[in-house]
């Protein structure tokens, strides 16, 4: 009886602690003209100065070729590039899991947009939820450019939309080698494909929000760690 109790006790304790998992870091950064943003490096005046860049990622999966080997149990993560403590996430993965692809959605899908109020990174106090019309802001990009005619020279892109025909959420699918995974938003193409002078503000679900979201999704590349 005593021996049974002892082994049961040890068994229960080890079940509580579980097998140690590995942390796979996914680190986000952004760059313009090969210079990394939010690193206190002075950017040339001819380029836009980005003061805010934050976005949601959701439905993260790791794949080995076609097979999904890991799925995120969290609903979504808010990445805030200006804050070094909020510009990365750690994926808890069992050791020995091999993967060569990472897939995720840039933004929040329709199901979560209609699920009522949510918490954690999806809490409306995070400043990524429209109050006047239901829906998450998938991506916020704000900044200043000398090209803009207004006195403050500000551009403001709050990109979202979960209802047809303005579905702004984008899928991202990238080949990855080793980890930590470093994902870089190379914004050169984004800024060369939009006219911040003509449309310095996009702040509601519309065609432009969808097009701009597509450009941001395409800008994400895998950097060497």
């Amino acid at each position: 009886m005593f021996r049974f109790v002892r082994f049961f006790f040890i068994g229960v304790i080890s079940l509580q602690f579980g097998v140690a998992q590995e942390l796979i870091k996914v680190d986000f950064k952004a760059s313009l003209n090969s210079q990394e943003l939010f690193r206190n490096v002075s950017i040339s005046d001819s380029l836009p100065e980005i003061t805010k860049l934050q976005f949601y990622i959701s439905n993260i999966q790791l794949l080995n070729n076609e097979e999904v080997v890991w799925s995120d149990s969290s609903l979504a993560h808010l990445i805030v590039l200006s804050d070094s403590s909020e510009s990365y996430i750690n994926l808890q993965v069992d050791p020995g899991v091999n993967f060569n692809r990472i897939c995720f959605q840039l933004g929040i899908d329709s199901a979560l947009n209609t699920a009522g109020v949510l918490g954690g990174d999806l809490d409306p106090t995070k400043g990524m939820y429209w109050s006047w019309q239901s829906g998450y802001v998938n991506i916020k990009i704000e900044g200043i450019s000398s090209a803009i005619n207004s006195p403050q020279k500000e551009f403001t892109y709050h990109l979202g939309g979960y209802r047809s025909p303005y579905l702004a959420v984008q899928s991202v699918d990238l080949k990855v080698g080793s980890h930590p995974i470093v994902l870089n938003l190379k914004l050169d193409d984004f800024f060369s494909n939009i006219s911040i002078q003509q449309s310095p503000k996009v702040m509601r679900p519309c065609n432009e929000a969808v097009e701009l979201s597509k450009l941001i999704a395409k800008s994400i590349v895998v950097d060497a760690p």
Partner: protein
Amino acid sequence: MLRKLIAILFIGVLLIFLTGSGKSISKGGFVPFYPSYFPSPDYDFINHPLDSTVIELGRKLFYDPILSLDGTISCSSCHLSYTGFTHVDHALSHGIGDSIGRRNAPALINLAWNENFMWDGAVNHIEVQALAPIEHPSEMGEQINHVIQKLQQSNHYPSLFYNAFNDSSITGEYFLKALAQFQLTLVSVNSTYDKVKAGKAEFSVQEQNGYTLFQKHCNECHSEPLFTNGQFINNGLLIDSLLMDYGRGEVTLKKEDSLKFKVPTLRNIEFTYPYMHDGRFQELSEVLHYYCNDSVRNTTVHSSLRNRLSLSSNEQVDLIAFLLTLTDKGFLFNPKFAFPK
């Protein structure tokens, strides 16, 4: 001695393992009563049951002007319980600093049966509706994260939130859920009409005449028993040239939605004046006069209103007599909905 110690430890670990890690235990879900002739609510009471402690917290928040930037406007400022949770003093609600809004405050009645919220359906779930008036510059003028900070810094809210959610944090999620749960309890199903439906009362001759007229002329949009079909309809109102409010069209950006507004419930209509999305009519007689004489046939107007209503004066009086049977005094004066003592 060692054996006893291990036995105690074993039982202790077993208890921890079996009872989980301190999640709040369900206190018994509350589902409001509704009669059998009502459709099922849109809100999922079964999987998202209400809780009496959360409801009471929501009620306290509903009546607290701390939600507004300058501490002067609460939800009840525009949604008064005795008048069907709407505002009778003004056609257009006003907010902080005497700013005037664009629309009449809707009555908060039977919201559990709504698929969407606001005159233009801009809000898709009751839990996120409160964000709209809280952050509107002409209503409460606040920001949700600042409201949460104020609640965290108050003397009494931290313990009220702890009792409701078993968590030492106050979050936007908890705050909005509490407000939503209180509003979901605002169910009006006991008017004279309902008593007649249940066989417990009878209409007068005049009210019965009015009911027959109602079913002929009004029921398509103000469908029984909710007295709204929840659709966006253009009822032929000429656009107000100052407000320039295109209603649903401003949300969907579709031409066919231009000038359409959500059909409001007629329950407690006796007390929820003034009428229409901009409160342009003070009395029910004005509303009927409008439908009979003044409605405009612009492109998106509802098919049933392409021709003006044809009602004699007597018929209009009878119809109003029927509409008065939709008053539910038990709802309007329910102490559980009024200012918490």
